[in-house]
């Protein structure tokens, strides 16, 4: 099992909130609790679900997951597993928030950058999209748009995300999705040299920094909805030596000029939005890209690529109880149709193997998922 590093010097960037002795034990406890729920409780619940699924008449083809859920609701252990899973997630945020608050002053001090390479632009009049306000994504209290004038919500998202991912997404950098999206661009165009790049729904910039590192000559931008997370993203990128310009904007409608980007991409953005937003984002990508520019969207594996009812129901429960507003919409969408309708050509829809470092590949792309975290769903097209 991958340990969560605790020495500031040993980390990739010093801004991440560091736990003290007790906080580290508590974070490891949460991590282990999540592993316990996933590896000790869930397999039995899954067996029970498959047993119940086999008893559903074959004639029931319409919404089998819902039929399965009804049967599973009769089992106490099914409910207990759901409660444990959600409470583990809530406990994660609570313990990380305590740790972040304790070192608030230190983090604010570290965020004072004398000669920044990039910038951050917040907008006090920004209208937060309804899908962000309707429920706090991943149960992070306050949600992605929370802003108290500090950067602590960003610090919470960073450390919480690293503990949440259990080290499966590039440890403390949490950047494998960004590396993979850029590796996809390089798979399509090995000599790709974009001058302007935009990351939509950039969060704290985990997926934006890989673009700046892979294309050091490019002007890189990132947009998201929360001022606090963007302030943090800016300081974090500076500590990592990445020149990035962050701004508080909706991916659906930005203030950048028409045809002003060579690469516009997003990483696991769609399932946190809405079906209407996905269409708007595609149209915005078309507007922003110069003719010949590349659009890349990375997502978790699509639902129809899952083979059984239980896996589908499990995903739906995750969406509902971990607040993923557009899980079903994003993971059942007809991406070929959407991208074509938005006016793109040379579509590629399938799976890109997870890249540790975009420039190192792997530079292959296929129709089949290689497994969760081993590959990512990608839909791309040329403007």
């Amino acid at each position: 099992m991958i340990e969560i590093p605790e020495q500031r010097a040993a980390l990739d960037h010093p801004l991440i909130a560091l736990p003290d002795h007790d906080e580290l034990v508590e974070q490891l406890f949460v991590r282990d609790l999540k592993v316990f729920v996933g590896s000790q409780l869930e397999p039995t619940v899954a067996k029970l679900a498959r047993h119940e699924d086999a008893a559903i008449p074959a004639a029931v083809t319409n919404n089998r997951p819902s039929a399965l859920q009804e049967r599973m609701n009769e089992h106490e252990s099914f409910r207990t597993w759901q409660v444990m899973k959600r409470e583990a997630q809530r406990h994660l945020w609570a313990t990380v928030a305590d740790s972040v608050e304790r070192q608030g002053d230190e983090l604010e001090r570290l965020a004072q950058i004398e000669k920044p390479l990039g910038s951050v632009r917040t907008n006090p009049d920004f209208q937060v999209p309804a899908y962000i306000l309707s429920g706090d994504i991943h149960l992070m209290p306050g949600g992605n748009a929370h802003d108290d004038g500090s950067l602590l919500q960003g610090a919470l998202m960073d450390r919480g995300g690293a503990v949440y991912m259990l080290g499966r997404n590039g440890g403390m950098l949490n950047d494998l999705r960004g590396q993979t999206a850029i590796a996809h661009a390089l798979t399509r165009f090995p000599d790709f040299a974009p001058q302007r790049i935009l990351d939509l729904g950039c969060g704290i910039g985990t997926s934006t920094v890989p673009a700046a590192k892979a294309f050091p000559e490019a002007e890189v931008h990132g947009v998201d909805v929360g001022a606090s997370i963007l302030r943090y993203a800016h300081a974090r990128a500076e500590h990592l030596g990445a020149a990035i310009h962050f701004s508080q904007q909706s991916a659906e409608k930005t203030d950048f000029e028409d045809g002003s980007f060579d690469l516009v991409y997003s990483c696991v953005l769609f399932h946190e939005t809405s079906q209407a937003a996905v269409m708007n984002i595609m149209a915005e990508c078309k507007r922003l890209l110069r003719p010949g520019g590349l659009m890349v969207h990375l997502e978790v594996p699509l639902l129809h690529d899952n083979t059984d009812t239980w896996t589908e129901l499990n995903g739906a429960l995750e969406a509902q109880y971990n607040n993923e507003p557009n899980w079903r919409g994003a993971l059942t969408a007809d991406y070929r149709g959407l991208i074509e309708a938005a006016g793109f050509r040379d579509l590629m829809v399938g799976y890109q193997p997870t890249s540790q470092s975009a420039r190192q590949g792997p530079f292959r792309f296929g129709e089949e998922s290689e497994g969760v975290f081993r590959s990512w769903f990608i839909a791309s097209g040329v403007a």
Partner: protein
Amino acid sequence: MTRTPLPRTPNRLDLIEGSRALDEQLMAMIIALTSEVTVLRARLDAAERLLVAGGALQAGAIDAYVPDDAASKEREALRHATMKKVFRPLREAAEKELEAAQNAKEEETSR
């Protein structure tokens, strides 16, 4: 600087079908307590190791420790107090049921 505390309660916690609110609250408290115990135990472990490293404690001294009579008595009192405190609701509930049953019996006899 003075800052507002980070929020602790997420917006939107959908009802888990068939689950009682109290069940969820109890589970949340058990998780929090298990977490506390885990932290306490790690802290004690750190204290022991640091004391051994600093020469204030011999390795294995705690495992070999046998409390004398006075210490045993104090420990016993602590154990009883803890049990009384933690399991108070169960004792109260049992007493209440007994009382209800006795009252019902008395009413029956007096009829």
